């Protein structure tokens, strides 16, 4: 598969009035054409920040990329002009958001909102051709084309998220970034949306970065997984590498253990000890060492490199025997 996105050693910080928040701390991430990558982690892990970096839409003045490169299809996003960026957003890379209520414009019909994307990126199309495309994409996401004259408030939550997906996909981007697209939805509706995304992935071959805190969604939808903690990717590999649960980063193991099982009757859960590290005051060494059951003296002094075994990379000294791999 051809490489589509290559993030190299990315550092992002937010400069707020009170402190400097170190949101992303040296992330390397490669996404190939047609691949579905799950980006998993808890609140404050830097998942969304990484995604905003790809589109170069970090909040102005506050968010700052201090180091690293983001190469999309051979071009560095960080060096692109305003025009190039606008051309890329929506046409080559698009994004769907957690809350479908706030990402749609309430006073424009959904058909026109989809049409707007086409107007922006396909100036050569005639009005009829655009209308045809709008109808097609609506049908594809499971909304009758006649409903394109309606306004967002006339749709339910799940339907709104389908419209969000339609807007994101109408220009047939090569990469779709989905930021917790089902978190605001009920489980039965979530199942419908996941099904739709699976089908679209098959039919359109769009590469996908799925940002989520839900390990179940990744298992269902993704080919590869990267687990983030405190702004770093601590483990990456294929879904099999990670979900076989033979060799994992202690944080990943911790995440799995936190989820109650449906098929067993354990009395107590095994939570991860302690709390999320403060991103304004990151510890030295491995960011997870304060909470890790396998901590050694070395973990507090030195940040482990990524150790690699085939497709599976883990940033933890316990896997040093694998040998150093490319950074993650």
């Amino acid at each position: 598969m051809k490489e589509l996105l290559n993030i190299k050693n990315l550092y992002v910080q937010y400069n707020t009035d009170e402190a400097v928040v170190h949101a992303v701390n040296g992330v390397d991430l490669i996404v190939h054409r047609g691949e579905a990558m799950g980006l998993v982690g808890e609140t404050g892990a830097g998942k969304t920040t990484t995604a905003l970096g790809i589109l170069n839409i970090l909040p102005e003045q506050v968010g700052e990329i201090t180091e690293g490169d983001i190469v999309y299809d051979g071009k560095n996003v960080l060096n692109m002009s305003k025009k190039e960026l606008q051309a890329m957003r929506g046409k080559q890379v698009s994004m769907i958001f957690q809350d479908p209520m706030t990402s749609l414009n309430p006073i424009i019909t959904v058909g026109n909102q989809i049409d707007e994307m086409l107007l922006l990126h396909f100036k050569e199309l005639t009005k009829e051709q655009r209308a045809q495309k709008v109808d097609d994409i609506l049908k594809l996401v499971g909304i009758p084309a006649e409903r394109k004259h309606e306004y967002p408030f006339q749709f339910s939550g799940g339907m709104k998220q389908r419209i969000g997906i339609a807007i994101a996909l109408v220009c047939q981007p090569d990469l779709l970034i989905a930021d917790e697209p089902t978190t605001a939805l009920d489980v039965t509706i979530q199942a419908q949306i996941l099904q739709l995304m699976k089908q679209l992935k098959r039919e359109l071959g769009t590469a996908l970065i799925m940002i989520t805190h839900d390990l179940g969604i990744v298992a269902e939808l993704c080919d590869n997984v990267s687990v983030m903690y405190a702004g770093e990717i601590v483990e990456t590999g294929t879904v099999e590498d990670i979900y076989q649960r033979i060799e994992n980063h202690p944080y990943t193991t911790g995440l799995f253990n936190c989820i109650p099982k449906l098929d067993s009757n354990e009395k107590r859960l095994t939570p991860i000890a302690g709390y999320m590290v403060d991103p304004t005051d990151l510890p030295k060494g491995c960011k997870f060492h304060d909470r890790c059951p396998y901590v050694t003296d070395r973990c507090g002094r030195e940040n482990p490199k990524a150790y690699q075994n085939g497709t599976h990379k883990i940033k933890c000294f316990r896997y040093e025997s694998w040998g150093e791999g490319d950074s993650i």
Partner: protein
Amino acid sequence: MSKPVIKTKNLTKYFKTPRGLLHAVESVNLTIEEGKTIGVVGESGCGKTTLGRVITRLEEATSGEVYLEGKEILGLKGSAKRNIYHDIQMIFQDPYSSLNPRLSLGDIIADPIETMGERMSKKDLHELVLSLMDTVGLPPRYYNQYPHELDGGRRQRVGLARALALDPKFIVCDEPVSALDVSIQAQILNLLMDLQEEKKLAYMFITHNLFVVKHISHNIMVMYMGQVVELAEKNELFAHPSHPYTKALLAAIPQPDLSSRGKNRELLAGEVSSPIEPKPGCRFSPRCPYASEKCRAGEIPLKEIAPNHYCVCTLFSN
């Protein structure tokens, strides 16, 4: 069978809306025993939160009865009404809006005691607050801190300490871990279960998360658009889900393992509509793959289809 702490009888709550009566909770009968947890699951708009708010009298019920240790409480007024809160408490969903941002943690936890508890000296009160903080795993150094200085998990511990301040017998837990990260969620669930064991607390645990409800509950009640559709012991429910909605709900959860990869699952079509002036019969029937004329004919009786397993569905009413 241990002692029932809370019992409801035909508990019903309708809201007046401009478009008609919204049937939020329709004739719910349930019993919660000492030291036990009943989990209430369902999707948004199923009435689970309203049920909790009616039992705690944050909302006044339209009809029906609630018994606290055998005594009816919905008819109580004035100080008799306030006195139920010695035994009934609640913890809330949003760890950010559930604590008064102007008060320090010590003041937040002390407030219920100052309002309703025994009169005591400042020093005793301080001691009591510290011991409550200790119970929920908050070190004393947080005493003078303010809510905005804490993360969600610790805030939720404060909410729990506040609920425990009056030494209640029954706590309504309204989505208490939904806003928390999984690693923190597990800590709070463990804490809730430890406290239950130690203090013989009865919980009504309201959630949309089936993993969580399976873990913490003894019995589980499934609601759909204000109606109870199924009620059973938890292992029985997960082993033999009987109502078509329960089945769909269980099938919809993405499992954090490779078992369901690549498989296409049976999907429930459509979405929840609003229970304003609903048609008679089963409100799930428009989405139900097994729906027949019988389902829309009228009220469907609750049927015990296995020991301690109740279901409201025409498939079982013969």
